[in-house]
């Protein structure tokens, strides 16, 4: 029988070609091997936030963070090899419109998950629909405590403290810097956010220092833009402390109109959302005003980016791409997306490497702890994540050209958020110093 032999040169060529082919396709092969069984071509995530109207400041921050994070993850190969595709929706138009949009996201766009919702009215309207349609929904900013306190949730999660934490934290801080406070006043917008925030602040103050008197409770339209009469009323009442949850353009206008008239000299003013506007207000914001990134445990300078790699990466990345230091809306969007990613990864691991269903991810989300630029966050069984909060006093920083936060105080989650199963008003009624 004739033996068939390949010439040696041809054999070497074939081996070389084969090796080259293997090297070139190795990442794909590795990625393919890393992709969970049954994984989709891409993970479609709807992101819903205000892209128009007065709250566009929130939406712009959220969209920037979402795009920055998703681009970063996709460059790194996606979530276990599955790239993420964002479907961005404008939250403007009211709750009814948003319910329709959510259904469209779920049934037409067939998103795997939805992240977002700044407005309390929207998140309360959308949550039952998310539960009905079994769509994993991660709420990033919406502050109403009612979302997680009034009904059990299966598919809906909130990855940040609710608004009661802002108010309790402010009350504790006020008492730490002005222990002899005797009178307080509120200037807030007349809707759920303003009303609940003031009620919780007032309740906390009266619980922690029962002899405090409320000398004025002022209500304005959302983003009213004209506060002269309210400022006059506060100047007449001369409270020791003024509490306000004004935000975005409304907050800037309040500071613009109040500062020249001496409001911030006559009273210690506590602004729960003002960290978001420090870069815009610059020198207009007086020193010595209590400001917070709501009850979020960090802002762009805390923790020190030089000592925390995630914080450094996030702060520098956002600044380089968008020309702005991340403020609280950026951080809360990061919390939401990062939590979703880690939940997916945990669900994949728990499923033995299979691509998980929404129910599996939801189950993995409960009790999950994940890392953010300023530390760990934990999701509780009631689908409410808890974390600490940071607050301080403004002090103009010439290095940045706008005020940064001085005399920073941080509070632990258990000091500012009610425990599982306890409603916020009841917990505030039992607050301890």
């Amino acid at each position, binding site marked *: 029988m004739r033996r068939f032999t390949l010439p040696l040169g041809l054999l070497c060529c074939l081996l070389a070609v084969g090796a080259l082919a293997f090297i070139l396709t190795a990442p794909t092969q590795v990625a393919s091997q890393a992709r969970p069984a049954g994984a989709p071509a891409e993970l479609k995530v709807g992101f819903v936030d205000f892209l128009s109207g007065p709250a*566009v*400041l929130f939406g712009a921050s959220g969209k920037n963070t979402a795009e920055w994070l998703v681009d970063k993850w996709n460059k790194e190969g996606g979530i276990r090899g599955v790239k993420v595709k964002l479907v961005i929706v404008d939250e403007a138009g009211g709750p009814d419109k948003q319910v329709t949009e959510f259904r469209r996201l779920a049934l037409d766009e067939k998103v795997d998950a939805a992240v977002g919702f700044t407005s309390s009215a929207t998140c309360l309207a959308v949550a039952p629909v998310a539960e009905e349609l079994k769509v994993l929904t991660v709420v990033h900013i919406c502050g109403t405590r009612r979302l997680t306190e009034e009904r059990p949730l299966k598919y809906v999660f909130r990855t940040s403290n609710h608004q009661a934490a802002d108010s309790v934290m402010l009350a504790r801080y006020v008492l730490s810097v002005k222990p002899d406070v005797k009178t307080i006043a509120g200037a807030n917008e007349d809707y759920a956010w303003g009303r609940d925030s003031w009620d919780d602040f007032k309740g906390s103050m009266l619980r922690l220092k029962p002899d405090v008197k409320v000398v004025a409770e002022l209500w304005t339209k959302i983003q009213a*833009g004209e506060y*002269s*009469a309210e400022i006059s009323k506060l100047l007449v009442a001369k409270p020791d402390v003024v509490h306000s949850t004004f935000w975005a353009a409304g907050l800037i*206008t309040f500071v*613009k109109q109040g500062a020249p*008239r001496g409001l911030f000299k006559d009273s210690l003013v506590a602004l729960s959302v003002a960290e978001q506007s420090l870069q*815009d207000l610059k020198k207009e914001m007086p020193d010595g005003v209590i400001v917070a990134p709501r009850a979020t445990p960090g802002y762009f300078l805390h923790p020190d980016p030089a000592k925390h790699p995630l914080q450094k990466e996030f702060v520098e990345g956002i600044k380089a791409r968008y020309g702005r230091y991340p403020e609280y809306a950026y951080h809360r969007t990061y919390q939401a997306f990062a939590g979703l990613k880690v939940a997916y990864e945990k669900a994949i691991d728990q499923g033995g490497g299979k691509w998980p269903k929404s129910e599996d991810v939801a189950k993995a989300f409960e009790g999950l702890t994940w890392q953010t630029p300023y530390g760990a966050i934990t999701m509780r069984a009631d689908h409410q994540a808890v974390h600490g909060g940071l607050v301080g006093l403004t002090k103009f920083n010439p290095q940045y050209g706008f005020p940064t936060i001085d005399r920073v105080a941080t509070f632990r989650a258990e000091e500012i958020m009610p425990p599982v199963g306890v409603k916020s008003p009841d917990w505030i009624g039992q607050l301890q110093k």
Partner: protein
Amino acid sequence: MRLLTTIAMDGTVFAAILFLISVGLTLVFGVLRILNVAHGGLYAFGAFTATTLAVWLLDLGANPYLTYLMLLVAAVLVGVIAGPLIERVFLQRVYGRAEAIQLLLTFSIFLILDDLIKLIWGTKPLFVSAPYTLLGEFSLSGIRYSWYQVVLIAVAIVFGGVLVWAVRGTRIGKIAVSVINDREISQAIGINVNRVYVGSFTLGAFCAALGGALIAPTIAVAPGFAVDATVLAFAVIAIGGMGNLEGAALGALIVGLLRAMAVHLLPEADLVVIYVAMIAVLVFRPQGLFGQVELRRI
């Protein structure tokens, strides 16, 4: 006494702001018989343009007092560019048509202007403080006010007076009144009615932009901020009588004082008191306090 003084001052400041916002609206309705919802867009354009020009001037290191001139320049620019453009391209096609069509058209223009603002200026709030803080503050009954608030009151009074004089005491004003009363007769006697319409709408646009420009130093302008102002302007002219300048002034004063009283005495009623007043006036005097009952022409 201090409370009365404070309410009077706060009410008058707010009334001045409301008058500046609403005078252009009532003027356009008076001459063109169109409820111009786009008025809010022109008001916003005036505010954004004024803020931009003032910031630009300050960045150049110019004398900050020149920012007051920039407010006027902004109003003129918006008025003379947007006024004739909107009137000739859009409004002239719906004169005499059903009011619903006119409302829809002007509402559409308002939305277009709102989107244009976002395209030009983005979504971040803009503000300039120099015009507001430059004149300093004074004390009235122990409460500090900005002198700029007094300037707003003075400008509202002077501007209102000039408009009334222009309408009643000048040839052009009398021609406009003739067109208001009877368009056909006015045409028949040789009045160029189209020119009156363009001129009136341009003046109305200038008034809207001037209102925005003057208020801009006191606020942070952001997309959508003009919506509330527009609604308030409609309430003011409904109370005062549509198409009547004195009515706009009285309506603004009533709304301003009511709001100031509510803020100081009953803050819970602040948001509704204006509209309660509007309903009360419309129920008992549907044409407004200074409005005329319109006779139907057969």
